[in-house]
């Protein structure tokens, strides 16, 4: 397993473009969160300090940071599709197999890399959230800190799921740009089907179905936190109440999709003549 990971890391880290994109997708959110936690003086007119809004309180900080940094996953998605696209365009996939890598090992080396970077990203986010939280949070009891850390697990699963989808599209169309276009098409398709079901039956039923679609299922894992922040500010407004928690069935759906995408990528490669 280490051998396969090592192999793929060499391919990625010696490539300048992927190095930059990896930096952008994992280190940038880290810094943005860090900066936003600082006191910012806007041209001397007023001081903006997000910490005073209470958004860096435990446990809400877990929700906020994971939601925010998962928006940067698109950059690493480019790396994932291009690491497949490049293997095809350089014909190095063929050469790897000739050199004695099995098709299964090839897919696994890509998948391990995805898991590795998702893990690194999760650990980074956990650390930065913990630090900022400890600095700002009004509650510092251990039992409160570890509340809702399942957002971190959700974040990890969300990343692995999304990148596995990219891996599958990369294998399917062999070209990075087309694979990204497919992602966009899938996004539109999910909404069209959602619209059709709403038209035929009702909105609630359509939403239930939509929660099983891959992109929506991944998005649903970590719901948007803004409403929750508003909720905590205006507890008397009951129309703001919504279900923001991470549910195990949501994780299960995404894990199911992840397994399917990795398996389909392998089947595709297995059946293909190179």
């Amino acid at each position: 397993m280490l051998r396969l990971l090592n192999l793929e890391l060499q391919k990625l880290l010696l490539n300048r473009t992927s190095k930059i994109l990896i930096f952008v997708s994992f280190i940038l959110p880290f810094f943005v969160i860090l900066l936003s936690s600082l006191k910012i003086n806007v041209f001397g007119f007023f001081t903006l300090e997000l910490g005073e809004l209470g958004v860096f309180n435990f446990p809400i900080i877990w929700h906020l940071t994971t939601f925010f940094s998962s928006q940067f996953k698109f950059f690493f998605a480019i790396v994932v599709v291009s690491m497949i696209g490049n293997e095809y365009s350089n014909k190095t996939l063929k050469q790897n197999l000739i050199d004695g890598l099995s098709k299964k090992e090839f897919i696994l080396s890509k998948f391990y890399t995805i898991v590795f970077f998702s893990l690194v990203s999760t650990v980074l986010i956990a650390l930065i959230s913990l630090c900022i939280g400890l600095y700002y949070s009004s509650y510092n009891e251990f039992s409160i800190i570890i509340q809702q850390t399942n957002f971190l697990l959700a974040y990890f699963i969300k990343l692995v799921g999304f990148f596995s989808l990219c891996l599958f599209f990369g294998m399917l169309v062999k070209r990075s740009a087309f694979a990204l276009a497919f992602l966009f098409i899938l996004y539109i398709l999910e909404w069209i089907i959602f619209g059709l079901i709403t038209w035929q039956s009702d909105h609630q039923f359509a939403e239930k179905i939509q929660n099983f679609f891959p992109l929506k299922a991944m998005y649903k894992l970590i719901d948007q936190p803004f409403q929750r922040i508003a909720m905590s500010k205006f507890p008397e407004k009951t129309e703001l109440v919504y279900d923001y928690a991470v549910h195990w069935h949501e994780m299960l759906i995404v894990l199911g999709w992840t397994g399917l995408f990795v398996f389909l990528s392998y089947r595709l490669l297995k059946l293909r003549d190179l």
Partner: protein
Amino acid sequence: MESILTINNLTKKFGNLTAVNNLSFTIKKGNVYGILGPNGSGKSTTLGIVLNVVNKTSGDFNWFNGSTSTHDALKKVGAIIERPNFYPYMTAEQNLKLVCKIKGVNESKIEEKLDIVGLLERKNSKFKTYSLGMKQRLAIASALLNDPEILILDEPTNGLDPQGIHQIREIIKQIAAQGTTILLASHLLDEVEKVCSHVVVLRKGVKLYSGRVDEMISSHGFFELKCNNQELLITTLKNSDLFTSIKTNDDLVTAFLKAPMPSDAFNKFLFDKGIILTHLVQRKESLEEQFLQLTDNTKN
């Protein structure tokens, strides 16, 4: 002798097209094999199948008497397919390190193999800055990294300039001299003739011949003759019943032998008949002539 690769009734169909048709042959240790065939005769497809990149339609093959799985067997094989494929943004050394990781061999071999192909000085240059000849030589170094039991080369001199072709051939000869089994696919006949001891001839995916190069067709060679009295020569030859056919091209007469005959005996025979030759050459068909004869005979 130990067999390295055995192919049994291998067939590959691309839709309606049958690229490889019921092909069987065995590669024994220590020989240099050539796979000959015109473009599109199924050479590369056959190699692709045994190298795990093309899926077979039917039949089977096994490496090293079936003692290991194909992808493990490939770690003991060195192969170059058509064009050198490496990561353009990595240097030669980095590319070879990657191959070491895949094959699970020690990285200490890298310098030694780069030296064999004469690229040691350029080991820190990026692959994309290499010329085609250098790329091909790097591919050979990469194929040699694991000290393979068999080296598979698919058109290794394709697209190279004469100097590059010469360099590659010298390297192949060196490797063959060390006793490594080599399988060389090519449509260049003199290339195969120069290095191979055994040959498999393919046409449209069908095997026409496999065996030693010098036994390719049952021919006893031919004489090329010139003489001042050509008419007498031809009638004498026709009446002698020693030859299968006699061809005339301007003043050169070519006579194909029915049975082996040394040139001195033949010369004496003609001299006794009162014919004095001005030109006498005894030859065997070159591989090219044999190949064309073989592929021509089996047309239709």
